[in-house]
């Protein structure tokens, strides 16, 4: 005899199975199809597994465009923005959380208010600002506007408020200077928040598309997102090659997510609650 509790469990399992399939089957389908030949992709009725197993779409796609360079560019852009944010946001957060100075609350409010200005709203004037600086088609132009995410400041400040002031006082009495306190006392203590922020920013900047689309027109600075978009818009690109490249671009993010899930979700939840 099945108890009521077990019946509920079985029912929940069945209900959750459908959204789980809806979320994952499209992704698995893409990966599986990237190992199919073109005839296999167009076969009716469709088959689940590739037959024959064809892995050459990967090297073929890789050779079609400068994907090695695009991946390198994406790494440079995403890592610079991530490291920049970790440093710049934590510094601002430290200042807001642990010092008392004239205009502190006003500055915090101004920083938070920029959360309400998404890129979709500011893209035209932001482009003109970067153009005026003559930073079009430079890494600086892609990176600089995103070096201080207001959400990052908010997140780090929340964590730093919880640090005991006595700890900082004691270090100061011991003769440590402010920079030493920041790097040697504060940063090690907020490491979980730093990890969550790093993942959040890395995901956003690795996946970034609109801004490079606007600001980058030269081949040698293109990130992988733009490379794929161009590859996709080319008439006559083979499906299996396109899927192969998309799979390569997807894998680092999915692996990062599966291994650091807790921090991933933490960043997402807090980014929702910031508003």
């Amino acid at each position, binding site marked *: 005899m099945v108890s009521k509790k077990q019946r509920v469990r079985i029912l929940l399992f069945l209900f959750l199975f459908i959204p789980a399939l809806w979320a994952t089957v499209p992704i698995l389908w893409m990966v599986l199809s990237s190992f199919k030949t073109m005839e296999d992709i167009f076969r009716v009725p469709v088959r689940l597994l590739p037959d024959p197993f064809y892995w050459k779409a990967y090297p073929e796609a890789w050779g079609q465009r400068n994907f090695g360079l695009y991946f390198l560019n994406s790494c440079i852009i995403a890592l610079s923005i991530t490291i920049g944010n970790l440093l710049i946001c934590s510094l*601002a957060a430290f200042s807001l959380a642990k010092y008392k100075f004239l205009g502190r609350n006003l500055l915090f409010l101004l920083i938070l208010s920029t959360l309400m200005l998404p890129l979709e709203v500011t893209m035209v004037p932001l482009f003109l600002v970067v153009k005026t600086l003559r930073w079009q088609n430079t890494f600086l132009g892609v990176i600089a506007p995103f070096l201080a995410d207001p959400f990052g400041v908010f997140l780090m400040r929340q964590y730093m408020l919880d640090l005991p002031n006595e700890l900082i006082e004691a270090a100061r009495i011991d003769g440590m200077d402010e920079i030493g306190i920041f790097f040697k006392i504060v940063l090690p203590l907020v490491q979980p928040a730093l990890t969550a922020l790093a993942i959040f920013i890395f995901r956003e900047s690795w996946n970034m598309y609109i801004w490079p689309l606007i600001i980058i027109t030269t081949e040698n600075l293109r990130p992988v997102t733009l490379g794929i978009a161009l590859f996709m818009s080319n008439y006559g690109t083979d499906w299996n090659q396109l899927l192969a490249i998309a799979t390569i671009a*997807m894998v680092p993010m999915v692996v990062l997510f599966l291994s650091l899930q807790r921090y991933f979700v933490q960043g997402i939840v807090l980014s929702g609650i910031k508003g």
Partner: protein
Amino acid sequence: MRKLHVSSRINRWAYLFILPTVLILLVFRFIPMTAAGYLSLTNYDLFSRPKLIGIRNFIDLFHDASFLQAVRVSFTYVIGSVIPVWILSLLLALMTVKLRRGGGVFRTLIFIPVVLAPVVVAVLWRFLYFEYGLVNEILRFLGFSPVPWLTHPSTAILALIQIGIWRASPYFMVIFTAGLQAIPEEFYEAGRMDGTNAVTEFFYITLPILKPIFLLVIVISVITALKVFEIPQLMTDGGPAGATEVIPLHIYKTGFVYFKMGRAAAMSILLFLIMMVFSWIQVRLFSENR
């Protein structure tokens, strides 16, 4: 609270530490927004000097058929996607939390679409929607004829709404889950003593506690749906016949394809105001219902 350091020697450091953030936000957020205000009053075209034309741009927008269509498309997209997202994300959170053991695994699987780059999502769904794609194969298998999802105006917007729901539901599921897990077990125990069942428990205990989070989800989901850009741009480029040209995509094209920077700035300001109005209405509605 203890008195913090008032020594000006130390305060100099405080200003120094916050300076980079302030400078970056000033140059890349505040100046552009102010510039948008000015540009929206000009006929700037990127090549000649901007000339002030008053509120001409804003007046023109109300007679501009393509902009009005973009507004209609955006509203269709928002209404079509956010309501299923609210219901679905709350249901998913409730079910996975109720399940306890195993619920986390389901959440992990369901969450994966959120981490994918928009470009990857676009490739993926173009492949699923095309003539011989999985979606049409399933239709064929069930005895229906295949549908030209992305090339027919009425199905293209549906196809994009489906992707919107696919990407947003897991995101809000996680936020609801955090809210649900914060409700102390004692609340439910007390309810059970008063004789609640699953339905009354949801309406009398869970929902009232979740209200602030629900409000947050509503506001964020509407704003996220209003600023959708990448998926329509990559999948249909606003087509066919403008059927999927949402406001941000229309702004992009006006500014960067037709170089009408003044007009694009006016649209940006309108979009910003629409977002503000939406969040304001929602906050008001919810605080009155209390």
